[in-house]
């Protein structure tokens, strides 16, 4: 502990323990006392002059604050840059105070230095981050005026000059409806939202804004930092990709439709040819064959048009409450005989636990399962002479009702898997419209569910329709369209 003649005894502890360095010099700038914090930076130093010790100078520094205080007896505060005894840069905040002798003259000066080196380094790092970060950064006050903005912000939106953020970002006269900064001022939390702005050059900009509180006060934050990530290029690429996908889908749809229609037209022309030549020759067998061709192709056109209408109409599901196991059994009964004729075993696995009633479009579900079983049957027929099995399963796990149709048929290769949900894609040639799985997917999406499949060439395919119960549609009001008689479990819409 120091024994400072100029300090009351009860303050020497403070002198020794205070977390800043204190040195006391006499009028010759000789160090007559210093606290441990000073010694830790500069070494013992007693008896040396402060300019020799801290600057390596033989004489007093130019503009020495101690010299000024000796002269005028005033206190002063100033920032100083120097180097420590190891030559490392040191940034300090210096307080210079006079120490008076008994006669009231300034006999010594106390120099108290707070080391700001770490703070300064953090400030510089923060400043670099603030300026160089590749997003728009602005600090706004409670009035939403930009008090500070980074380089990217200034380059795109101009100097803030106290303008409000919505005027700079969007050229608006009023604040935005979904202002995340205002929400942060309100609750001190972090908020994020997507915005569209206008650059200084008048170009549309897209950005994701996150706001965070700065300088929290008793009444909430005094300032908020807005960090906006520029999504303009990404948004443009997203739009281009969507447009390309839309055009590709339109092109694919038109090409698929044209191909299907051409085949049907050819079939119709063939029917006309065979019928008319049969009539001319008085050949009833040939006439009948041609007539059947006409009927078949008219039926196909009718089926295609109906499927197209079903796919394109915006009509939503018509829900009713029913037993899903009943629908599964109906589909089994519908297909089991034709499957058996082709040597395919169609089985129903009701699962360990019964699945309770569901609220869905019953007819739609029936069509989907019909479509999946029909596809499975076709896959079995293509797979060759080996015995083939189709399993229909109904199960519920964690509130999700799942319908599975698994076949041990031919399976799908990579190319077919990629096109499964593509309009007018069919592996069945004339046998399919290429819309079945699209309609199934539409049904599943309308019921908040998902459709997935696993398939291995030569080993089979499993399709799964999964419906979380909490996302199923609501039952319509009693007596409304599609309302159901709970006693019989069937829809009134027939």
């Amino acid at each position, binding site marked *: 502990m120091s024994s400072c003649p100029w300090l009351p005894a009860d303050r020497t502890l403070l002198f020794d323990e205070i977390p800043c360095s204190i040195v006391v010099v006499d009028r010759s700038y000789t160090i007559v006392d210093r606290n441990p914090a000073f010694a830790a930076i500069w070494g013992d130093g007693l008896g040396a002059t402060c300019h020799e010790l801290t600057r390596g100078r033989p004489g007093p520094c130019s503009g020495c604050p101690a010299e000024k205080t000796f002269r005028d007896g005033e206190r002063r505060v100033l920032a100083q840059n120097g180097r420590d005894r190891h030559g490392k840069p040191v940034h300090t905040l210096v307080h210079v105070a006079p120490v008076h002798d008994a006669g009231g003259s300034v006999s010594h000066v106390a120099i108290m230095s707070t080391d700001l080196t770490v703070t300064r380094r953090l400030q510089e790092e923060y400043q670099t981050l603030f300026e160089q970060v590749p997003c728009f950064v602005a600090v706004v006050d409670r009035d939403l005026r930009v008090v500070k903005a980074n380089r990217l912000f200034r380059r795109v939106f101009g100097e803030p000059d106290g303008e409000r953020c919505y005027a700079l970002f969007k050229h608006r006269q009023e604040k935005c409806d979904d202002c995340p900064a205002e929400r942060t001022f309100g609750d001190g939390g972090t908020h994020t939202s997507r915005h569209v702005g206008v650059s200084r050059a008048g170009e549309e900009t897209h950005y994701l804004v996150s706001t965070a509180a700065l300088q929290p006060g008793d009444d909430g934050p005094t300032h908020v930092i807005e960090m906006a990530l520029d999504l303009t290029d990404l948004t443009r690429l997203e739009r281009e990709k969507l447009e390309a996908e839309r055009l590709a889908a339109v092109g694919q749809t038109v*090409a698929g439709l*044209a*191909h299907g229609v*051409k*085949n049907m*037209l*050819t*079939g119709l*022309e*063939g*029917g006309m*040819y*065979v019928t008319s*030549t049969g009539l001319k020759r008085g050949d009833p067998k*040939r006439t009948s*064959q041609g007539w059947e*061709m006409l009927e*078949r*192709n008219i039926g196909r056109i009718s089926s295609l048009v109906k499927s197209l209408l079903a796919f394109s109409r915006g009509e939503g599901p018509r829900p009713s409450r029913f037993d899903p196991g009943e629908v599964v059994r109906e589909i089994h009964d519908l297909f089991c005989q034709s499957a058996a004729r082709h040597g395919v075993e169609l089985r129903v696995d009701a699962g360990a636990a019964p699945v309770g009633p569901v609220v869905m479009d019953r007819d739609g579900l029936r069509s989907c399962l019909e479509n999946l079983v029909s596809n499975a049957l076709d896959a079995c027929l*293509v797979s060759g002479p080996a015995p083939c099995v189709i399993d229909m399963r109904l199960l519920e796990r964690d509130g999700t009702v799942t319908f599975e149709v698994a076949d041990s048929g031919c399976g799908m290769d990579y190319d077919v898997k990629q096109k499964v949900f593509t309009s007018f894609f069919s*592996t*069945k*040639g*004339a046998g399919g419209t290429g819309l079945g799985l699209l309609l199934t997917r539409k049904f599943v999406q309308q019921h908040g569910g998902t459709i997935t499949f696993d398939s291995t060439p030569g080993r089979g395919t499993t399709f799964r329709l999964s419906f979380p119960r909490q996302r199923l549609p609501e039952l319509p009001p009693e007596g409304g369209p599609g309302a159901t008689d709970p006693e019989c479990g069937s829809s009134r819409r027939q």
Partner: protein
Amino acid sequence: MAQPPVRPRVLIIDDEQDVVTYLESVLNDNGFEATGTTDGAEGLALARRLRPDLICLDVVMPPPTGVRVYRDLRGDPALAAIPVVMVTGVQKEFKGFIHHRKLVRPPDAYVSKPFDVAELLATLRRLLPAAASA
């Protein structure tokens, strides 16, 4: 006594049964001997067995597709010389595809669906001069 003219044999491969029936009827009525199938693999087998004078081949079919069948026909030395007429609804796309594959000789002719009977017959007669007088 004069021998009846030899009817050129035409094999039709198209997954649409009605198209096969139509083509068989038209060709059999116009001096050809036509046989058809709706299955690409069976079509290849028939081509090897019957050695037809010409093949009418569809492009868009369930596997093996018309493209696959065409490549197999061209790849089989015993069948490579048989003229192939592509009867298709996607002529433009197929033409582009086949002409970019330098390893495969382009088909001898294309006929678009729905086809014009006179044009079809003219094409076949051009490729099979023996049928011209039929």
